[in-house]
């Protein structure tokens, strides 16, 4: 009895820590501790009794009891009691019949998986042996062109196509179609659990089968020729679906075997390394943005006499010229501004003479390994004209910022730089993206420099080099990083430019025709361009259910059951396969949100460019701006709001039809209601993006974990860890004692490649364990070293995606629904600005309701 007070005290500390607690917090906690220590046994249900609230009621903070907590306790206890009858302790677990079945299936799948692995290993070994035999010069895509294999391959293709055609076109009655779909689905699920590339490819084939069947059925038996309006709208929808189908097929083709090209070693003797000119084109960006890029470029690992850096200033600013002179890099200015960035680079090409040209947008900071990683392939393949590396962004783009999912969900560019470019590399179809790339001067001059005819000069240039028989390569190593566009309107502006440019190329220099390209390159380019044409089809999908709900015409003229039996396999299978193929780079359904946001804006320019390719002007993407106040972008979101209203009207009419309409229509109404609801969810996501969140920090902070040490005036050296850095300074974390010792002026020591650098800083703020520091000395030499130790570290961006959860379609759907509700609440918020109190309640109600649901419980070893 004597010992109970220290015990209670320690338990109290466990719950409270260093917090200051009010009386309302203390009373329930003390009551519980006293009660549990006196009346309860030491351990209950395998858990220390006094810890039970923490373990079994994770959603409740006993020190901060809220009004609805009693309800939460009831829900949680009921859930635990009825659904989680056994405690999670290991001893009480007994396998059920279901578990045994699962174990058996696993064993069975394991066997198949083993067989597959053996097969794929054999293919891989064969592949490598072949590559060795042909010498290292041989590029993987050239393996396909075997003389003797061509006839055999051709026969195989004909045979496969014949069987495929049969599978796709044979008519089946509903029951047969159901069994066909179900069988495919089971096969798909089994394959999905087997790792490796071959099962993935097989899945693509099965999914294609379902999709082709669907498209064939749609085209042959669902058009209503008796109803002109229905026919017209039906053909419209069919065309949109055809577009989606072509993109799906080409996407599978393009991504069937991402090359994952490794970097290749340079010769040991660096005197044989080629000379490189590094261009940093700039037009209206701030000097601070350009500075970091120049400092990083100066630290690139390359012989000093073989690397020349040039600032290509189209803004004709003297402060840039002075800066270039101060830090000792080249400065190029031209008399006119014709052809924007392309013209700027072309002008500089005439002033310089390096064997290679590296191009960096002024806000992309190269890491020191950039040339080491990208140059090796040029020496190995003399026909190689371009090496492209991904564009990595260390600041959130408008999607990430406004949806608040930075570094949690792969961003919009993730798919392109993670998968599509890598997939195209197999087919020698990787193209130039304007920055973070190296080009061989000779072929570049052969095609007349950077193309100036279209607004996407980058893709067009590489298309021309491909036409001359040069190769391109993609190395998926994040060896440079930059700033993302700041505002939604700027972001959309940039995408409009890309879309218009791609449409222009498609019109003026169509990759499907013309000489010089291999058919596989044609398809890669075509697919990349097709991606930008998604505007009109997307709008068609977003409005399609309205044709029935509002206009009462059947645009898919078939019984609802048949539609389900055909549409379901098509949609479901392609999303299962895409989740597997693209999951790491784009989570399920997010593509729909991204596309929806852009659809309205790219629809017009792409269409115009298709008919009049020379219309329109080049708009520069502004970056590094600030958003001082949170606001809702009414201008940008106008089209989505219109679509939202239309769909809501459709829903209302649909519900009326359900209640009042004829009973034989119920299925069709339900299906279209479901479709319209889905559209509303996606549109909600698009609306959410228009709610611009604040962006007030000028220097973007990059979260990291880097070792560092801090020198105090008396000579003491403290061990610390850099938690984030920006161009102006950094934040370190230390132990509370060490943080307490920090003085106003300190020196931070950071290491780079075995060398330590000292940066004088002063303390800007001081927390318990974290201290914010600002650079005191901003002289060029210090800044070069500082950028080298921070932004330009070779390993900086490699682990960037480690924190991302893997793609799970259902949790992805849940997140989209969450985002969508956020969007509608922002919309209501924006609409009812004066009545702010009530407007936020929609979202608040949602979060409150969500917080009532039972929580899974997990135990740590020390709870037991």
């Amino acid at each position, binding site marked *: 009895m004597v010992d109970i007070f220290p015990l209670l005290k320690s338990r109290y500390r466990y719950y409270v820590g260093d917090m200051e607690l009010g009386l309302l917090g203390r009373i329930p906690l003390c009551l519980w501790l006293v009660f549990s220590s006196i009346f309860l046994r030491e351990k209950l249900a395998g858990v220390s009794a006094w810890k039970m609230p923490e373990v079994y009621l994770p959603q409740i903070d006993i020190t901060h009891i809220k009004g609805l907590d009693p309800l939460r306790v009831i829900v949680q206890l009921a859930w635990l009691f009825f659904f989680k009858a056994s405690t999670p302790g290991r001893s009480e677990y007994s396998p059920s019949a279901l578990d045994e079945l699962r174990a058996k299936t696993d064993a069975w799948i394991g066997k198949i998986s083993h067989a597959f692995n053996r097969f794929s290993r054999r293919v891989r070994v064969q592949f490598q042996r072949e590559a060795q035999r042909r010498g290292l010069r041989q590029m993987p895509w050239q393996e396909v062109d075997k003389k003797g294999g061509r006839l055999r391959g051709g026969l195989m293709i004909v045979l496969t196509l014949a069987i495929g055609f049969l599978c796709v076109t044979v008519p089946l009655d509903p029951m047969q179609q159901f069994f066909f779909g179900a069988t495919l689905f089971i096969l798909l699920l089994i394959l999905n659990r087997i790792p490796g590339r071959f099962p993935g490819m097989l899945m693509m084939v099965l999914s294609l089968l379902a999709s082709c069947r669907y498209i064939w059925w749609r085209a042959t038996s669902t058009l209503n020729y008796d109803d002109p309006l229905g026919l017209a709208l039906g053909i419209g929808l069919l065309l949109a679906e055809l577009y989606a189908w072509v993109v799906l097929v080409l996407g599978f083709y393009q991504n069937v075997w991402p090359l994952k090209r490794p970097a290749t070693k340079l010769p040991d003797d660096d005197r044989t390394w080629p000379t490189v000119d590094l261009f940093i084109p700039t037009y209206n960006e701030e000097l601070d943005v350009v500075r970091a890029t120049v400092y990083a470029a100066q630290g690139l690992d390359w012989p000093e006499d073989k690397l020349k850096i040039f600032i290509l200033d189209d803004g004709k600013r003297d402060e840039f010229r002075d800066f270039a002179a101060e830090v000792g890099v080249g400065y190029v200015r031209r008399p006119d501004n014709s052809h924007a960035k392309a013209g700027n680079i072309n002008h500089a090409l005439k002033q310089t003479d390096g064997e290679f040209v590296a191009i960096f947008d002024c806000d992309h900071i190269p890491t020191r390994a950039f040339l080491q990683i990208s140059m090796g392939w040029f020496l190995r393949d003399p026909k190689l004209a371009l090496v492209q590396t991904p564009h990595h962004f260390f600041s959130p783009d408008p999607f990430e910022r406004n949806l608040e999912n930075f570094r949690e969900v792969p961003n919009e560019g993730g798919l392109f730089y993670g998968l599509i470019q890598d997939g195209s590399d197999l087919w020698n179809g990787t193209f130039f993206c304007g920055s973070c790339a190296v080009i061989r001067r000779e072929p570049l001059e052969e095609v007349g420099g950077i193309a100036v005819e279209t607004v996407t000069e980058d893709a067009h240039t590489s298309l021309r080099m491909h036409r001359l028989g040069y190769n391109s390569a993609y190395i998926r190593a994040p060896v440079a990083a930059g700033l993302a566009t700041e505002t939604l309107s700027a972001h959309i502006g940039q995408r409009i430019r890309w879309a218009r440019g791609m449409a222009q190329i498609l019109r003026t220099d169509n990759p499907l025709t013309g000489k010089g390209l291999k058919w596989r390159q044609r398809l890669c380019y075509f697919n990349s361009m097709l991606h930008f044409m998604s505007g009109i089809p997307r709008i068609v999908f977003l409005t399609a259910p309205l044709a029935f709900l509002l206009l009462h015409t059947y645009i898919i003229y078939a019984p609802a059951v048949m539609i389900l039996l055909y549409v379901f396999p098509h949609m479901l299978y392609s999303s299962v396969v895409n989740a597997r193929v693209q999951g790491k780079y784009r989570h399920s359904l997010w593509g729909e949100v991204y596309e929806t946001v852009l659809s309205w804006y790219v629809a017009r320019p792409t269409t115009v460019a298709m008919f009049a390719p020379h219309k329109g002007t080049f708009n520069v993407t502004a970056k590094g701006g600030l958003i001082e106040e949170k606001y809702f972008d009414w201008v940008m979101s106008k089209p989505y709001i219109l679509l939202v209203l239309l769909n809501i009207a459709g829903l209302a009419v649909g519900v009326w039809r359900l209640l009042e309409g004829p009973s034989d229509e119920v299925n069709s109404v339900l299906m279209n209601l479901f479709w319209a609801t889905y559209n509303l969810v996606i549109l909600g996501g698009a609306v959410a993006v228009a709610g611009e969140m604040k962006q007030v920090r000028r220097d973007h902070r990059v979260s990291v974990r880097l070792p560092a*040490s801090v020198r105090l005036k008396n000579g*003491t050296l403290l061990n610390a860890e850099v938690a984030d850095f920006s161009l102006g300074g950094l934040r370190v974390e230390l132990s509370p004692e*060490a943080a307490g010792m920090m003085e106003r002026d300190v020196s931070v020591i950071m290491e780079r490649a075995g*060398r330590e650098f000292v940066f004088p800083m002063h303390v800007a703020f001081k927390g318990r364990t974290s201290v914010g520091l600002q650079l005191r000395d901003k002289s060029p030499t210090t800044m070069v070293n500082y950028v080298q130790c921070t932004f330009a570290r070779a390993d900086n961006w490699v682990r960037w995606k480690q924190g991302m959860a893997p793609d799970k379609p259902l949790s992805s759907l849940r997140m989209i629904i969450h985002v969508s509700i956020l969007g509608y609440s922002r919309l209501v918020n924006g609409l009812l600005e004066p009545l702010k109190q009530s407007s936020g309640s929609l979202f608040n109600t949602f979060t409150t309701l969500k917080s009532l649901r039972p929580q899974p419980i997990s135990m740590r070893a020390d709870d037991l």
Partner: protein
Amino acid sequence: MYSLLLSGAHGGVGTTTTTANLAAALQVQGFKTLSLDLNCDNALGTHFGVHVTELGGWMRAALDGEDSRNSIFQSHDGRCVLPFGHVAQQPDLILRRMLNERPSIVRELIADLSGEGFDYLLIDAPTTLNRSHLGIGGIGDLELLVCGPEIQSYSLLKRRREEVLHSKTHVIMNCIQPEVPLFGDLAVLIREQFAQNTVPTAIHQDYSVPDSLAYFESVIAAAPDSQSAKDFHALALWCTSTLKAKA
């Protein structure tokens, strides 16, 4: 028992300090360590809190004809030390005389100590060119050559590479001072030119080290947040993993 032989490239590079703090870091890893002072200035004991009035040590015991193992001291954090011992006058001369009589006295001493149940024996030896009379060549499972980022250390390594760097010898840089560009350059130079024989970590110049000694503590115990404490942990980790890899 593993034995680590520590020698300086020249005087004043911090061999004794390194020995005491490395022992502390090994002790934190859970090893029982004994540090042996072979220098006649008898300074190592101070790092373990041995009081100046204590006269005991292996030399003292040898002169008195006693068992040197009775002169092992233990600091309050568990590290053990066998000092050189107090010799009233001209300890260097007396040591030489002793070695003339019994040339293998140090080897015998180390053999005796190996039966005492320690995991690591750290030998704080005189500078690398001044220890041949002790007859301890090749006795360490691992030899650490303590160098400073200075011209003296570099020129010794350059001139007498064959002599001072064996396969078991590794250079550990002490008192790294990134603030002084010359020191930084020399550290990089030594690491690059003797890459095979260099420990991948280094120990920073840190006021916490002498400050801790003023409290008769290791820097590990007295200033756990300091960079040098972290450096010694890293060095200890490198030593144990290197020895494990060799075994």
